[in-house]
């Protein structure tokens, strides 16, 4: 018994020593363990504050802007706003854009959430680019072409939000009227005009004038809008560059309205009557600014909704105009019309038609001139994200509200009263509502 105990104690001692050694060794190893890892695909924010990053930062703002207007959420806000206003009809099988096409814009589905999210990100990234460039470039920022471009996109993205959304929320703040986006956009564009001028980049300077004219028109500042429009030649176009280089650079409006099994069709819209059926099947008014293809053998997601192929954009490489001289002439025409000058207003409209080698139009009185203007803006700016703000401001103005129905309507089973029932704006997403404590007691529409 004594021997056994001795052996047990001796072995136990060795066991304890071994265990302690093992524990100590393991602890030592763990303590010296380096758990750092690499991921070559990601960039830390601090890495961006170098001059070489400036183009990528500003191009990032242009990238997110394209995501907002034509890519995410069933073709971006340009596509879904087209479905809301009568530029296109939803004929596909996807539910979220159907909600919008039916005149009841939702804000819960992931697709419809993304409209607010992507548009907000476009604004934030353009304004963040301004901040970053200010830090990186110092005084040189005031005459930097890249800074002018960042400010132009800050203006465009604020204009986009003001055009499209029912209300405004900025940087997690409180609910505000949508017009604050226009005020904010106007400031950025005024600054863009100065910086582009200092940088000697006329194309950006003129684009900023054109964008500011759009913003001022939406704010009801017709004098300011006309003054800015006057800086822009009729043939000027500033475009969002589209490319087939990658999916996120492509023209999403084309993808969603012109590819087989797309979601949107000009069918049942006034544009199918005004435009040109390139197949020659339908008897239309033949305006070349709204071309489409009628193909009976192709149905949409709903068997009884024909899928006409919109042909304004015929490839993913087709750029989308953000501001055009022709719209400036129509702004001038509308200002004249609002002043009661029917003749000069029609002349301005005909400047646009002349630009496209179209026959002159005429209007015998103010009613006809308004109808002409509304139709011309529709055709000239078809699928460029301009119809929704147009209908919105016309519906909000007692003088023009009743005139909308002459140019905005739907046919057949998808008919719906346009100006009475449609809110003419997209809703702030529930993501924003649920995550922003400043909205708790003041919910958006």
């Amino acid at each position, binding site marked *: 018994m004594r021997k056994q105990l001795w052996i*047990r104690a001796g*072995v*136990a001692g060795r*066991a304890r020593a*071994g265990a302690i050694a*093992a524990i100590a060794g*393991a602890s*030592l*190893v*763990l*303590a*010296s*363990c*380096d*758990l*750092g890892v*690499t*991921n070559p695909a*990601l*960039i*830390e*924010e601090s890495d*961006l504050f170098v001059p070489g990053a400036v*183009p990528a930062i500003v*191009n*990032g703002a242009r*990238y*997110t802007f*394209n995501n907002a207007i034509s890519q995410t959420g069933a073709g971006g806000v340009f596509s879904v706003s087209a479905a809301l206003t009568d530029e296109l009809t939803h004929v596909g*099988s996807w*539910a979220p854009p*159907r*909600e919008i096409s*039916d005149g009841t814009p939702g804000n819960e*589905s992931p697709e419809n959430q*993304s409209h607010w*999210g992507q548009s*907000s*990100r476009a*604004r934030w*990234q353009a304004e963040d680019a301004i901040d970053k460039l200010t830090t990186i470039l110092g005084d040189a920022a005031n005459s930097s072409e890249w800074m002018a471009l960042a400010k132009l996109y800050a203006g465009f993205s604020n204009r986009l939000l003001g055009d499209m959304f029912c209300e405004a929320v900025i*940087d*997690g703040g409180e609910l505000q009227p949508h017009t604050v986006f226009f005020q904010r956009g106007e400031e950025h564009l005024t600054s863009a005009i100065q910086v582009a001028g200092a940088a000697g980049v006329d194309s950006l300077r003129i684009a900023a004038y054109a964008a500011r004219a759009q913003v001022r028109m939406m704010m009801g500042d017709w004098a300011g809008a006309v003054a800015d429009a006057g800086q822009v030649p009729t043939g000027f176009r500033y475009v969002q*560059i589209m*490319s087939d*280089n990658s999916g*996120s*650079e492509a023209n999403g409006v084309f993808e969603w309205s012109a590819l*087989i*099994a797309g979601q949107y069709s000009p069918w049942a819209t006034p544009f199918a009557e005004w435009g040109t059926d390139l197949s020659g099947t339908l008897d239309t008014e033949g305006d070349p600014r709204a071309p489409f293809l009628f193909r009976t*053998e*192709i*149905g949409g997601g709903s*068997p*009884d909704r024909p899928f006409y192929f919109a042909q304004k954009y015929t490839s993913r490489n087709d750029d989308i105009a953000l501001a055009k001289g022709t719209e400036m002439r129509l702004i001038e025409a509308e200002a004249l019309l609002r002043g009661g000058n029917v003749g000069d207003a029609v002349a301005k409209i005909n400047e646009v038609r002349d630009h496209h080698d179209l026959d002159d139009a005429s209007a015998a009185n103010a009613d006809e001139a308004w109808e002409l203007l509304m139709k011309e803006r529709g055709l000239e700016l078809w699928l460029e994200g301009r119809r929704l703000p147009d209908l919105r401001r016309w519906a909000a103005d007692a003088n023009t509200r009743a005139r909308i129905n002459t140019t905005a309507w739907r046919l057949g089973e998808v008919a719906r009263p346009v100006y009475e029932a449609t809110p003419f704006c997209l809703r702030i*997403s529930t*993501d*924003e509502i649920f*995550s*922003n404590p400043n909205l708790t007691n003041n919910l958006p529409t």
Partner: protein
Amino acid sequence: MSLSMFGAERLRGVRRRWPLALAAAMLALTTGFQPAASQTQTGTITGTVTTQTGEPVVGAQVTVVGTQRGTLTNARGGFIFTGVQAGERQVRVTSIGYRTETQTVQVPAGGTATVQFSLPISAIALDAVVVTGQATATQRREIGTSIAAIDATALEAAPIKSMSQLLQGRAPGVNVLPGGGKSGQGTRIVLRGAASVSQANEPLIYVDGVRIDNSSPLGISTATAGTTWSGLDDINPADIERVEIVRGASAATLYGTEAAAGVIQIFTRRGSEGRAVWNYSGEMGVLDTPFEWWDISEFSPWFYDNMVQRGNLQSHQLSVRGGGEAFNYYAAGSFRDEAGVLPANTEQATSFRLNLGIAPRDNMSLRLNSSFTQRDVRVAPDANNTRGYTINGLVGGPRGQFVETLSLVDIRGIQDGTRFLAGLTLEHQLTDILSHRVTVGTDIWNQDQHQLFPFGAISNLPEGFRSNYRRENRNANVDYNATARLHLTPDVRSTTSAGFQYFHRSTGWSSAIGEDFPFFGLETVSATLRTSGAEGRSEEKMAGFYGEQQVAFRDYLYVTAGLRADGHSAFGADVDFQIYPKVSASYVLSDHVQLPDFLGTLRLRGAYGTAGQQPSNFAAVRTWNTTSAVGAQPAVFPTNLGNPDLRPEVTHERELGFELGLLEDRVHFDVTHYDQRTKDALYAVREPPSQGVLSPQLRNVGEIANEGWEVGVRGLVYERPGFRWNALVNLSTNRNEIISLGGGAPIQLQWLQWMREGYAVGSFFGDRPIAHNGEVGLASQLLCEVGRQPGPGEDACSVGGSAGALPEGWDYIGGPLPTRTLQLGSDFSIGARTTVNFLFDHRAGAFAQSSTMRWLMSPNRNITEGHLQTNRDLGYDINTTPGPVARVCRDALDATNPTEQQQIYAIACSRNSLLTHGDFALPTDFWKLREISVSYRVPEAIPSRFGLGSLTVNLAGRNLWRSTDYIGLEPESMYRNDLSDSALRSQIFFDTPIPRQITLGVRAQF
């Protein structure tokens, strides 16, 4: 240095290969690797193992206690050990369903000792050794937690062709969630309930101590045509010896930071002492689906006649095992070929395994386990695929919903995977007291997925499309454990263990996409006119150290406490390490006090433990990503806000239970109650989108509760000479609830699925038609309390122009995971040669969004006369009439005396537009006859004529019968099984029904 070094230098680390070197050094120093001393005075032990009624026990484990010697009994129950050191030796026999027996024999030098075992039946296996969840191999009686064990060798007759099927319905609380019924389609596994709202709720999986990658990479996604890959199914089930399942945190503590969802440990077969024993098993069979399972649409008859086929399968496995005194081996090769029930859906699987065991000394063993698997799956287009067979054919008929003639649809989706798995385990009994073990393992998994839409084959991509996605994942892990066992007093025994674990994962993937072939016949990305490519690489590291102390009082009371400290590369910069404690107790009451005669074994157990779930890699860092923009110019955009305080979520679990044997332990009750709280739950907090970063940021803010019961009853129901009936009942319940989102807003998982406080994770919410107080109508109308003002968080409502309020929760529909599961099974032994087994499987309480029925029941899914005429003009025999596509709509709208349910369907069928998703969050309860088999062992005289030792013929069926009120195709399927949180994304989208399977097989031993 200290543990505070964990987490330092997040992004740019220096690789060090210390764990392997250190573990090897520690073992080399202590083992010395001397060859075994020559054994000159040896003898032989031989014997047989039978039941108490005299029938041989086949495959029982026989070991010589205190040595590395072990073998399995043969078809006659016999075994033999040669070269056993002469003297007094103990021989132990273990077999599932029988009591472990040990006998002492005197081995004469140069002679033979014979021993006979007659095993008493015992449904309780307290002496069975469990490896998972403890620092070292431990008898079940000593463990205070519930660990499920599956003896795969007892399932040879069961209709099992994959590991997923081996686990399905086998243990309470183990939910195997299949993606659908296509061949090659994988599964997700959830143990108990959802412990996380943001991270994968899937368990860690180890094979012979090597951690495998079971993620579901998005190559050809299920959103287009893909099939979820289940890494688990790369393991050949025929090679499996047993599986241990740790279902909760209390038993998973020693696995640390990634184990909160549980651990599954798979042990493959080993060699055994004796001559080479060859085994061949082969089976051939059919897969099919009855028309009733497809009968949801007016086009179902056409679809069934023209698109649904009878599949077939065959498999062959050849293995050999054997060994000598210090060496054993198991080698196997298998091949399986399967064609599914839809056209162009096939799976071929080939696997090889070599397991070697070496015992250089009596106190040392070395095991090498290795396997190679190749699986090639050709995917049939179904599910949410605009050119899928099911969605087109069942919604639109022969010409499809998009006027695509289905017979011409030609989408080729190929998913090939190869996996090499190797592990080396060295165990050394250093002294009588001290032992240690190291396992070094690697899992290398390559995938090659490619998809081809040939030129002219698909109308929405008329010029064709080609994609290729390749991914390689390499896991490496090193586990070291040292254990000291000693008697503190004659009654008190101590087991002290300590160890460390290191894990490294590196993943790289690349993809190439091409669009538009210039002409017919081309098939590669480089042959297209427009190409793009992408590449990604990431890695993660984890290191943990643990200690465990067990104190045993006599052989009936055991108390265990343990602690693990982990560092992980995904922790925030301000988080150094995470501590996980555990404590448990096991009290074998029946070994302590005299219980009434009707009671047999009674064991009480209780445990508390924690385990973690780490955040995704780089979630802690504020990052931007690169892209090309506006015509291939460089651009950056924000991706992640970053959170330096990010730490793993920690699941705390309390578990109480008992095991009770009745009727002399012939019936075994195993009852467990668990109560889990996941604290610091990682919650993807949505920042206001107006702040610019759209991806939610992980924060440790939430709390989730899981509570439930697991009851297992198994045992001998009836026995008489020549007949035995064993039965099992597995019951589990789960109540899942989000206790807190830390003040955060509800978050949308998808569509109707939300994370809301007070409800199960991922619950469905929405308005829908219901029956209430004898009325049928919309919930928003019937539940509206007219005249009451809405309270905080309540919705306003209006009925007939009168304002009111809807009560909180009016729109709650149900949760996505089952709240109850039940399995009923039996096996019958008839005579000495025939066995019959069956297993019924029941699931209840889970809801799924049925996009299948949303599409079919939508009011605009009406068949027109023109549509029918078009099909007739093309020669299709469509024997239907204009009206709704969905059968339930036709039945409900045509019924003269509609039932309450038909009235509900009638509303759903008439509701305006596709938007009413709430109408289609449907219960998925079902009963299935999961397995049934008949097995007959041919009299030995017959196989012996052909040189065979034994021959068994087996007829088996799987999923032969189902009962469900679900009105779609398949209540079990989940089409988005490719997503990390897919266990919660309960959505069904024209997934193929899981087919019936009937096989005829033979097993021969020679």
